[in-house]
């Protein structure tokens, strides 16, 4: 980065730049690292220095019916909506890369719109709409809502993967007598799988992290993890929150690792 013949002034500037960049990275990662040790604190104070090591807050979270329900709800709604979003989004991405037609740009914009519209507007629209059709405070309503919010991510990742896909492979398979289903499942899907899976992960993460729609449309039965955390932060932040936060950070690490693996696999292909 720095030439050996650089002047002193340049060197100072260079290292200042590096320090700013380093501080930026610390700023990004520190809040996440700081919250983890607090979950092992033996008292309920959320400040350093720690008073002692204890797993009592983990015990509290794991034995609590409220957090248990929230974890179950988040996993259920997340996986159901990710599944639906992946099926619908992959189909749409196949269609979008297959042919050009009039109005394609408009259709594309519409399919992507749930990603752009501020979530408070989506949440309010869905809340009023669900009130009319009786879907507020139901699992179906939340799964449908999260499917709509997650599908654009699948469309984008799968479309990007299909860009490098050789369509002649499909023609070859068809000419050898494979029916469209076989062509898709035996030829196309294995090749675009990294894109499909990362789309599915994005959709799952979207649902898993979503709180505004849940805030408006969920009943007490459908409270999800972020919704439960929202209450905790708003009322009185307890070490239980830091336990859940730590678990969610581990979850994010796992997601990150999986995506990195998929990216590398995609690069090899």
């Amino acid at each position, binding site marked *: 980065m720095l030439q050996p013949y650089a002047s002193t002034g340049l060197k100072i500037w260079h290292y200042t730049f*590096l320090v700013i960049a*380093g501080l*930026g990275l610390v700023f990004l990662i520190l809040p996440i690292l700081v919250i983890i040790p607090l979950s092992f604190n033996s008292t309920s104070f959320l400040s350093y220095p720690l008073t002692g090591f204890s797993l009592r807050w983990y015990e509290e979270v794991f034995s609590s019916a409220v957090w248990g329900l929230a974890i179950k709800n988040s996993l259920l709604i997340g996986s159901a909506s990710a599944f639906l979003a992946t099926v619908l989004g992959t*189909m749409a991405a196949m269609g979008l890369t297959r042919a050009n037609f009039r109005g394609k740009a408009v259709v594309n914009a519409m399919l992507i719109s749930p990603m*752009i519209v501020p979530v408070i507007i989506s949440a309010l629209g869905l809340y009023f709409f669900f009130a009319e059709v009786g879907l507020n405070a139901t699992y179906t309503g939340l799964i449908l809502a999260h499917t*709509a919010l997650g599908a654009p991510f699948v469309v984008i990742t799968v479309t990007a993967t299909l860009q490098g896909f050789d369509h002649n492979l499909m023609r070859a398979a068809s000419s050898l007598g494979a029916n469209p289903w076989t062509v898709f499942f035996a030829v196309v899907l294995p090749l675009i799988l990294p894109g499909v899976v990362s789309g599915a992960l994005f959709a799952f993460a979207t649902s898993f992290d979503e709180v505004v729609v849940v805030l408006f449309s969920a009943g007490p039965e459908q409270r999800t993890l972020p919704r439960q955390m929202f209450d905790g932060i708003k009322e009185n932040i307890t070490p239980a929150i830091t336990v859940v*936060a730590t678990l969610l950070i581990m979850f994010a690490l796992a997601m990150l690792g999986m995506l990195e693996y998929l990216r590398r696999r995609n690069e090899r292909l």
Partner: protein
Amino acid sequence: MDQTAPITAPEGIADDISLKVKLRRAERKRKLHAMALIAPLFIFTLSIFIIPIGLMLWRSVDNPELITYMPRTVIEIQNWSGEGLPDDVVLGAMALDLREAYKAKKVAMVGKRLNYDVSGMRSLIMRTARKFNRQFPDQPNLDAFLKADKRWSDVKYWHAIKRASDSMTPFYILASIDRQVIDNGEIERVPENQAIYVNIFWRTLWIAGIVTLSCLLIGFPVAYLLANAPAKWANPLMICVLLPFWTSLMVRTSAWVVLLQKNGLINSTLQGVGVIDDPLTLLFARPGVYIGLVHILLPFVILPLYSVMKSISPIYVRAAESLGAHPAVAFIRVYLPQTLPGIGAGGILAFILAVGYYITPALIGGPKDQMLSYFIAYHADSTLNWGMASALGMMLLATTMILFSIYNRLTNATGVKMG
């Protein structure tokens, strides 16, 4: 072999045309196939997303209360010129409507709607309706109304009823830009003490602007470091950007609540070092909102910038320097312009996301730090003024759409990708 081919045409041409027809057919089949694949998601998004939002936005002009619960009055009051007080026909219709609305327990809806326009009108309507229900006047004329409540002699209440009698109203949209229709039909600014929404709009843009600028100032060096670090460093450094990006928003928000408290880590560190004597107020104040939003949006700026910087070949800067440019000049005039697409794309993306943010300001900010989204939620679930919530939603959506079309133009023209 092909019946569509003209009989008189020579053999070669006929084949040619049939090939064209076949091609066109194949093309059409492909298009239909493509549309059939897109249709399920299209219909789904249309019915679970676009139409609900459209219906919500409709509420910003919808005006159903008086039409539904005061059906006679809305017809009769059309004949009132607006000069003097309405005649006995209007008053008779109104007395009847009020009594029936009271019996049906809907008069509160009417009162609430009229109260948005003229404050104090809820009590006027409720009181009159209650009295008419207890004893309906023999002659429902002005005297009867004045007996129920003296305020009916003020023409402004009758104007409010007339304004609320159309099936559509500009009321909420005008209110969202601090304007109102006054009795003579003209539009003017609302009184200073009620004018809040334009301020909130500017505040939203201001906060989003500060956050975007901070993201760019911090994000640029970070992206530069990531793009130019040696390979063995690049991956662990990248995790510092990607882990927060993938970590739940609520986790990051709760981390900041913990850090920013009065006796939180930031205050105790600063006090320990001796920079400050008394703890700073960071939580439930503007600094907290800035810090929280910058932390959440920084990856959205770093990732496109990184993608652009990764593709910039070092030879241009080298060429400039070998031609005698000072490194600073080479950086500013050769390197920086090449990163502009990334700065533009990342900056606008962060701005769009910041403008629509709800959760983090709601949890970290104080009453004076709330943005448009907060007031939309406030009207939707606290005051239940859904017309106002929708009008503010329209404002937010329009802002987002304009920004997004700029973003789209920028990224399409330059091909910047996220991540």
